[in-house]
């Protein structure tokens, strides 16, 4: 792997991970264009290091805002930590449940099956990207209101949205969260899903 390839991958991963445009889709396209093997251990190690870099960027960038909100008092810390815990647990539960359902329904519990095999598919990735684009455009046309206070309900909602997006390469989690996290969009999504709720449906992802 050359320094130029590392530079390109770092910029693509660093930017696309945090913008609502799906880092997986961009990194996979960049790897294909540069002829790299995404399954090699060296590439896995590089991606782990790149993710670490972007995680530190998030911490540094939001640190002051989080100090003013999440760490402003012990009570604020407790309630926000609870919301983050709720969202994380819901994300893990929904994401893992979805993966198991897909493994059972699509791969018929084949022992060697990994979710990446299915969602590394370019067509599915393109559909996911397209859906994320439509969601962002639709949500941007709905005016966000409210003081921005978190609640258990919004934490559950955000966790569920992130969990639904977890297995789908190309569907940006931050894009879906910011789009559906806005209160009117949340109400809109809820209203849209309730009247036709006779069968199990996926409202967004």
């Amino acid at each position, binding site marked *: 792997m050359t320094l130029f390839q590392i530079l390109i991958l*770092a910029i693509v991963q660093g930017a696309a991970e945090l913008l609502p445009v799906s880092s997986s889709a961009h990194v996979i*396209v960049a790897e294909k264009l540069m002829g790299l093997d995404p399954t090699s251990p060296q590439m896995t190690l590089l991606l782990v290091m790149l993710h670490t870099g972007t995680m530190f*960027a998030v911490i540094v960038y939001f640190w002051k805002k989080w100090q003013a909100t999440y760490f402003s008092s012990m009570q604020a810390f407790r309630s926000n930590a609870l919301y983050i815990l709720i969202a994380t647990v819901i994300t893990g539960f929904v994401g893992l449940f979805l993966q198991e359902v897909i493994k059972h329904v699509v791969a018929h519990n084949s022992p060697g099956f990994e979710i990446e095999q299915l969602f590394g598919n370019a067509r599915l990735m393109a559909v996911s990207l397209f859906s994320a*684009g439509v969601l962002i455009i639709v949500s941007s046309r709905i005016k966000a209101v409210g003081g921005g206070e978190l609640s258990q309900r919004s934490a559950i909602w955000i966790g569920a949205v992130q969990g639904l997006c977890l297995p789908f390469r*190309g569907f940006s989690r*931050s894009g879906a969260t910011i789009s559906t996290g806005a209160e009117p969009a949340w109400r809109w999504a809820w209203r849209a899903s309730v009247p036709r709720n006779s069968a199990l449906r996926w409202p967004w992802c």
Partner: protein
Amino acid sequence: MARQRAEEFSFAVAVVLTPAVMGKEVLRLAKAPAEAGGSLMTAVGPGVLGMVLSFAAGMLALRWLSSWLEQGRWYLFGGYCLLASLVVLWVG
């Protein structure tokens, strides 16, 4: 909830989730064939460089995202995703 607030919360959840996802990948690495071990050591240096570069790119991306959210230009990301879906179809 305001989009900026959803943005902050979304990234706070991501910071909690990222170590778990990375842990899973590290476990996968640990199960890699023994002969890959030597070449992995040579990938550590480039990996550290990549980490620094992705940190810088991430900081710029967050500034960009925040400013477009504040300016109400969020929809442009949606347009980009639609275009990118066509590129992915073409490349794939």
